């Protein structure tokens, strides 16, 4: 081996180690930053791409039960790419899906409104108390989460049914003489959603209200504002980020809610979660079910991204 060659090897080895060293530092930094992105990619983006891909195929009696988009045969030397938009066209043509989306959005909107109404006083109280009382209130909000969600919905069935606790109590007090029909109604669905999603509303509200500068309220009082005026002019606008975050956290899952309407609602409650179930299990049409899911995501995500965007700009300004 010649000396020049050895020098060259040494040189490139030095380069390599430097390169490696450089890379290692970068990689460490990269890995810290990339964790959330990796999370999003694995648990949101990849599943979404899979669902989107299925929505472009057609149903078939096979394993898996849809036609492949990409098909190739090396012996006969062909590759075919077959994308079907028929599912999306069918979604547009048939007004059934539109009314299912609209009625889901209506149910979710009404429930979100009532959740906000119930959650605000709770969060307000939590933010205004101190020390152990606050810890106790916080625990009370979070504690129900320790019980299975399904169990809590079943508990509501026990309360709301015809010979359930509420009816029995009201009857024995003589307030009503016929049991109230509460189960299998939209009312029961609203109760179920408000109850289940309450903590998702309380916690963001609480964190917004807790950060509030109390001297602002004193100043308002000094300047002659009545309590309700200072609430609407100061507290509410300052709590707005919490209100928006809480409403989104409740509204988004409520639109796709399947279990609560299935257990508490009547047969006539038309929601998109149920439509998805029917497409998937009764029609065995995975592509159509995927199409319904993709459209739901678009309907939900686009306006939300717009809201977040405008919020971001406000924050920067």
């Amino acid at each position: 081996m010649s000396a020049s060659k050895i020098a060259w090897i040494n040189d490139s080895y030095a380069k390599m180690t430097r390169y490696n060293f450089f890379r290692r530092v970068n990689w460490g930094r990269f890995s810290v930053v990339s964790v959330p992105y990796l999370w999003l990619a694995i648990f949101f983006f990849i599943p979404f791409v899979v669902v989107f891909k299925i929505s472009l195929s057609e149903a078939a009696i096979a394993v898996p039960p849809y036609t492949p988009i990409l098909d190739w045969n090396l012996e006969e030397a062909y590759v075919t790419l077959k994308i079907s938009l028929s599912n999306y066209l069918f979604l547009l043509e048939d007004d059934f899906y539109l009314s299912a989306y609209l009625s889901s959005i209506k149910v979710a909107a009404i429930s979100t409104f009532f959740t906000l109404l119930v959650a605000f006083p709770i969060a307000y109280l939590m933010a205004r108390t101190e020390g152990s009382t606050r810890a106790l209130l916080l625990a009370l909000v979070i504690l129900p989460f320790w019980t299975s969600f399904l169990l809590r919905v079943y508990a509501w069935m026990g309360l709301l049914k015809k010979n359930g606790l509420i009816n029995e109590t009201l009857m024995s007090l003589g307030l009503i003489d016929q049991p109230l029909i509460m189960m299998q109604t939209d009312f029961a669905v609203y109760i179920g959603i408000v109850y289940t999603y309450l903590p998702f509303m309380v916690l963001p509200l609480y964190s917004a209200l807790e950060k509030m500068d109390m001297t602002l309220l004193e100043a308002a009082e000094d300047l002659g504002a009545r309590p309700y005026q200072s609430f609407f002019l100061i507290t509410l606008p300052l709590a707005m980020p919490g209100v928006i975050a809480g409403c989104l956290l409740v509204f988004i899952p409520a639109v796709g809610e399947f279990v609560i309407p299935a257990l508490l609602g009547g047969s006539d409650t038309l929601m998109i979660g149920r439509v998805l179930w029917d497409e998937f299990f009764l029609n065995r049409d995975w592509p159509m079910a995927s199409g319904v899911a993709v459209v739901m995501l678009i309907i939900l995500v686009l306006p939300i991204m717009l809201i977040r965007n405008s919020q971001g700009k406000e924050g920067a300004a």
Partner: protein
Amino acid sequence: MTIKKALTLSVCSALLAGNALADDKVLNIYNWSDYIEPEAITRFEQETGIKVNYDVYDSNEVLEAKLMAGGSGYDVVVPTGAFLERQLQAGIYSKIDKSKLSNLGNLDAALVEKISSHDEGNLHNIPYAWGTVGLGYNVDAVKARLGDMEFDTLDLIFNPEVTAKLKDCGIGVLDSPAEVMAIAQNYAGVDPNSESKKDLKKGAEVLEKVRGDYKYFHSGKYISDLANGDVCVALGYNGDILQAQSRAEEAGQGVNVSYAIPKEGTLIWFDLLAIPSDAPHPEAAHRFIDYILQGDTAAGISNYVYYAVPNKAAEPLLNEDVISNPGIYPSEAVKAKLFAQKAHTARFDRLLTRTWVNIKTGR
């Protein structure tokens, strides 16, 4: 040898042993919930030394979704006839090697013959249990509203004059479009398995007239609701309703539930043991199926779950309250009026699902 190496080696050998075990000593069963006598599994494990992993589902749709996704890992599954019929088209079941089944002769040949409409020549299935879809009712509540009459009629749920009287005490109907529509079409006097739009419409008209009197469409709630008196009439599976009956007796609240097979004729269904084509342990699967075919095993299951088993050798071993219960083992005359539901085409399924949603939501 370092500790680390020793650990790695022992883990490796454990894995190898596990694999060897998996070849012939494990069996993965996927069956309906509450559908077997628990001791039957323990006895099978003791007799054969095969470790059973027993999973349960509560709807054919869930089973189908798992099987159609592929690679379910199950060795024995129990689909209902019409579902097996369609799944066979996708080629997801392997043929059953009947030479390995020493107890095959115990099967009730007349019933097996009926199943060949789902599976030509019955090459892929061994029947597990069978039953009917019929009427569960709260005897006292219905009598109080309708007076003394025979309650073995679909008028209880399909005749608007009758349902109007029963509305206040609650009517529940299975949320199962294919089954309920077949019964409604039969009630309307057309072929229950017809796929023509006209016949579907006739069935739908039956349901539209009475829909407002129904409390709900649901495939599971009626069991506890019948037992508690929350509904007084339900169209459901015979075993479920008999389960409601015994629950009501246990509760001792004076609720008296009874089951009737409607005289207009109704659905007979068969749940069938089948082996998925990608089953990892087909040998063990055959042994299990042969074990189920034993008269004593089948009788134990029938006595426990209150469904009929198509097993001649089981008959002498059945409890008196099971074999003499016409809701479980109906007479030949009643059996003659029962019809099996065929698998539908995808086109008809789509039409049926939409019709069903429209009926349910009153659109």
